[in-house]
């Protein structure tokens, strides 16, 4: 019986096969097997982050930061101490911001057209939006790079930006479209009925209500662009973004500062979410 509960246990709690379970411990295990399995997965997801965090305090011998030597805060006190690291970080942030702006504007427009209007070629547009999400990155990366090569376009900041806007676009469309579709069209009609011109209706009603969807799309774009490696790898030329820097360092030697930056971003993200949650709760209470 114990065996049966562990095999099926990854998916659901199993029922006792013959009424009573003899052992209390076993019964507890059976009841909580899903929770335990879920927590196990959670551990698997978080373990690497813990390792990254711990090793940001390492002082490695040699060029690679894979083995624990001794505790040190050197890297934390000098995060930009490695050549090109902070430069690449700045470039990544810059590209992510512009890619987010571009993809959010273009994607929101498409989402509104899809959610609010009937027009021909609708199915075609939907397919064109879906395909980039169903395409292995390496295929998009290689084909776009082929185009740039053949057109004789210099690889660099602009080619990266173009590529990032391209693959972020679909995600923005999906996020915004879902939000606009769930919005009651009568709200816009009510605004028009209450003397708001089309422009005013858009600015005062449509946009504020669609805002959470647009924000979600923008956040996703930022994360995708900032963390993208494969497409950037093909379309960057000699320009080095932060993921490209990490990739290069895996070959040449991994400075501890990489872990510092990785940990810092993790902590900033958690902090932002926690602060946001608390603020939301307080607003609700008042």
């Amino acid at each position, binding site marked *: 019986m114990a065996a049966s509960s562990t095999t*099926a246990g*990854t*998916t*659901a*709690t199993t*029922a006792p096969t013959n009424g009573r379970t003899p052992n209390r411990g076993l019964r507890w295990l059976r009841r909580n097997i*899903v*929770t335990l*399995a*879920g927590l196990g*997965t*959670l551990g*698997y*997801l*978080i373990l*690497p*982050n813990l390792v*990254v965090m711990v*090793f940001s305090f390492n002082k490695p011998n040699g060029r690679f930061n*894979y*083995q624990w030597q001794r505790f040190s805060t050197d890297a934390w006190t000098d995060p930009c101490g490695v050549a090109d690291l902070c430069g690449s970080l700045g470039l990544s942030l810059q590209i992510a911001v512009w890619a987010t702006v571009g993809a959010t504007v273009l994607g929101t*427009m*498409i989402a509104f*057209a899809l959610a*609010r*209007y009937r*027009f021909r070629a609708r199915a075609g547009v939907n397919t*064109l939006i*879906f*395909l*980039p999400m*169903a*395409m*292995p990155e*390496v*295929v*998009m990366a*290689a*084909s*776009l790079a*082929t185009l740039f090569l*053949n057109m004789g376009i210099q690889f660099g900041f602009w080619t990266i930006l173009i590529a990032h806007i*391209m693959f972020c*676009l679909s995600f923005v*469309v999906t996020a915004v479209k879902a939000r606009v579709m769930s919005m009651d069209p009568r709200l816009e009609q009510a605004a028009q009925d209450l*003397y708001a011109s089309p422009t005013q209706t858009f600015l005062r009603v449509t946009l504020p209500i669609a805002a959470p969807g647009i924000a979600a799309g923008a956040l996703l774009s930022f*994360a995708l662009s900032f963390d993208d*490696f*494969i497409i950037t*790898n093909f379309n960057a030329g000699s320009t080095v973004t932060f*993921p490209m820097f990490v*990739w290069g360092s*895996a070959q040449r030697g991994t400075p501890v500062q*990489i872990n510092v930056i*990785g*940990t810092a*971003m*993790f902590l900033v*993200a958690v902090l932002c*979410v926690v602060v946001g949650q608390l603020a939301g709760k307080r607003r609700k209470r008042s």
Partner: protein
Amino acid sequence: MTTTETPAPAEEQTTAPLEVRKTPARKRLVPYWLLLPGILWLIVFFAAPLVYQASTSIQTGSLEEGFKVTWHFATYWDALGEYWPQFVRSVGYAAIATALCLLLGYPLAYLIAFKAGRWRNVVMILVIAPFFTSFLIRTLAWKTILADGGPVVAALNSLHLLDVTSALGITEGHRVLATPLAVVCGLTYNFLPFMVLPLYTSLERIDPRLHEAAGDLYARPATTFRRVTFPLSMPGVVAGTLLTFIPAAGDYINAELLGSTDQKMIGNVIQSQFLRVLDYPTAAALSFILMAAILAMVTIYIRKSGTEDLV
């Protein structure tokens, strides 16, 4: 509001009351103007490159003399003949990683949806927050975790598990790094959140009272799961497996960082053909085959699972 006098006199319209009005062209064109820039972007930088690549794959030539379209389809046969092991490996690794993601991700999604209670937000943050550390850094961390002298390998060795896995051919000797196990483990780790989030979304929509109703109608917990919960979570399962399988099949980072030359996947080949060997026709042919294979598999899968409205 002051009175706005309509220019059209009322008499004229009453004499011809059945004249049919048409929506003005300016209004009808609005959706097209909204679509234009974004769609143009996708056509120029996504669709056109795919066509361009198709033509590149049938070109011959060299870097010095330039490439010309010569309808040289043999590139495809040569590429397949030479790199079929990498293709098979890519699909195999991706399939195993996807299955593992489903197996590991389902309990976690279930936990967040039904069992976490007031901890739900905390668990959600813990699932999403790792995203903010560059995935390359996190993948490198697996090098430390699975290192030859590390605690994981030591534990597996003391249980003689590595002997078993080596016999099965998924590890080599007494190490995990630079073996298929390490690559699959890395792939699973990297794409796990893409499985958990859609699963959670579809599980969360299930009314918990359905569980009670199933129990009330004599279904055991296991039966409830099999007959009610799992079928209702199918959209999440389909979305999750697609979001995991597609990027995993084209990935080359895990194979590069955690594997050896024996674990190279098709992504590695495309990358090196394109960026190092500069054999563009072969790279193009390979990515075209990969694209076609994945699109075919995805189409069949969506049809079979009966969730076409997903797209």
